[in-house]
């Protein structure tokens, strides 16, 4: 655990020093500009638009970091051989991989946390009140980001960085339109039901994590809902990380 924490700590430091958190500047600009413009344009709807924009930006920037930083998380270390001296120390490959995952997970937590602070600050500055329900959508976004990191990590161990980036992106997009996959049987007649089901299970259902509209428009999100998506994220991430660990154990480091 101590060694996993050391790798995670270093991964977080890398993210900060490699300016991954600079995306917060863009987020700040979006929040400020939207606050200034929308506050003037509409009545009562402006808070919803700001919440919508804030959550969407959080989701987008987070996904981009999870995907592109996630893909390079271990593959960059393999390419540059910077992990060779580390793995010669009493650090197992499993610990290294889990530490990298935890490090990026913590980076994303800080990123999402700061953005949430920015979103609330904008709402308060416009005297629109701090809606605590927003935190439920933020939590779901964060779970989706962890699933994305796990996928990026697995694919980057199995393939090249470029292929991993494209395939993770495809999976993220497919997962966000999983309702289309559900209706794939209509598009591809004769596709067996079990195949459809297998595709549905394999592709992460990112729609589960999209609580933005429900929260912004005041639909109830129960703790039961949150518990279910947490369990789904834990099961999916756990499975993918386990596969990544198995693949990484067998990976030759030339």
């Amino acid at each position, binding site marked *: 655990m101590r060694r996993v924490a050391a790798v995670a700590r270093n991964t977080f430091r890398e993210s900060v020093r490699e300016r991954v958190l600079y995306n917060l500047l863009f987020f700040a600009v979006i929040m400020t500009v939207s606050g200034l413009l929308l506050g003037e344009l509409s009545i009562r709807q402006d808070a919803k638009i700001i919440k919508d924009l804030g959550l969407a930006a959080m989701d987008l920037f987070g996904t981009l970091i999870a995907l592109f930083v996630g893909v390079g998380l271990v593959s960059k270390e393999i390419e540059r051989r910077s992990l*060779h001296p580390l793995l010669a120390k009493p650090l197992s490959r499993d610990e290294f991989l889990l530490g990298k995952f935890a490090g990026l997970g913590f980076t994303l937590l800080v990123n999402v946390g700061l953005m949430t602070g920015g979103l609330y600050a904008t709402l308060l500055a416009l005297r629109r009140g701090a809606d605590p329900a927003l935190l439920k959508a933020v939590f779901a976004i964060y779970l989706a980001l962890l699933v994305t990191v796990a996928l990026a990590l697995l694919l980057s161990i199995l393939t090249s960085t470029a292929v991993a980036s494209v395939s993770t992106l495809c999976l993220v997009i497919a997962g966000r339109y999983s309702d289309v996959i559900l209706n794939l049987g209509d598009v591809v007649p004769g596709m067996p039901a079990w195949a459809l089901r297998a595709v549905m299970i394999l592709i992460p259902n990112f729609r589960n994590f999209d609580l933005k509209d429900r929260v912004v428009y005041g639909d109830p999100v129960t703790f039961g809902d949150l518990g279910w998506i947490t369990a789904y994220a834990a099961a999916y991430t756990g499975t993918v990380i386990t596969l990544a660990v198995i693949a990484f154990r067998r990976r*030759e480091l030339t």
Partner: protein
Amino acid sequence: MVEAPPAVDIRGLSKSYRIGHLRAQRRQAVHDLSLRVPRGVVFGCLGPNGSGKSTTLKLLLGLLFPDSGSATILGQPIGARAARQSLGYLPENPYFYDYLTPNEYLDYAGRLFGLPPGARKDRTRELLDLVGLAEAADVHLRRFSKGMLQRLGVAQALVNRPELVFLDEPMSGLDPLGRRSVREIILRLKAEGSTVFFSTHILADAETLCDEVALLRGGSLVAKGRLDQILSLDVTHMEVLVSGLGPQEVSGLPAGVETFRAMGERLVLHVPEKELGDVVVAVEQRGGRVLSVQPVRQSLEDYFFAEMGHPAKGETWTAGA
């Protein structure tokens, strides 16, 4: 009393890589290698570039997996955490996180060994002094030269006061001062009882430092043993440094002078031992002055050339640097 297992015990290790566009062919990198490295020695793994030295080290460290064979490190199987707790490793052409400083990198390495904060701080300071990087302790590594990175590489390999240190081409990229410093570190480690296993293609380094060597070629072991067993200790000829003679005057010297070379305004004469007296007298009779006389024995370089001949395809090597 039970004898401690050897530092390294390799039994029939083989490794091949897939090559070519379709990865259909295989290249044998290490072939049926067996070696025993006793504790407390400086062991040199020598061979041209591409002879399998780095692959052997990576197999021993569990970075690569052997096709066949096995090995133990400090009595433990490859990859055992207990062995890695007592190991140090400097990779060839190391890359360290360029966003860190030496202080931070060594602290990170210390954490992986489970050292407490105070011990990490003390050890970091001690190691940076040892490798001459104390003044750059807080400079980001992206600003480091290749030689400075190599020094840091040596330092991180010693964080845990290892019983066994693997150094892959440790002199690579170092200036003469840096090389001297690494040589001193290797000798100091030996004096402290550590085993040093280092790979090099620079024969002069091996000759200066090693108690035992193994010569690899094409992934196979060509020779292994103590330097005094491998090399002939007999004097092959004498080197006589003279001044006050020109190259044209050498022809007038006794027939004992086999060859000579100019060194500035001086000449170095290669003379068989039994002809030395006649040659010295003849030099002085012609107004020359004998500055020094040095016996020459077979060097590792001579042995290497004799054993290896010309480098095989894909191999390059350096006799000295």
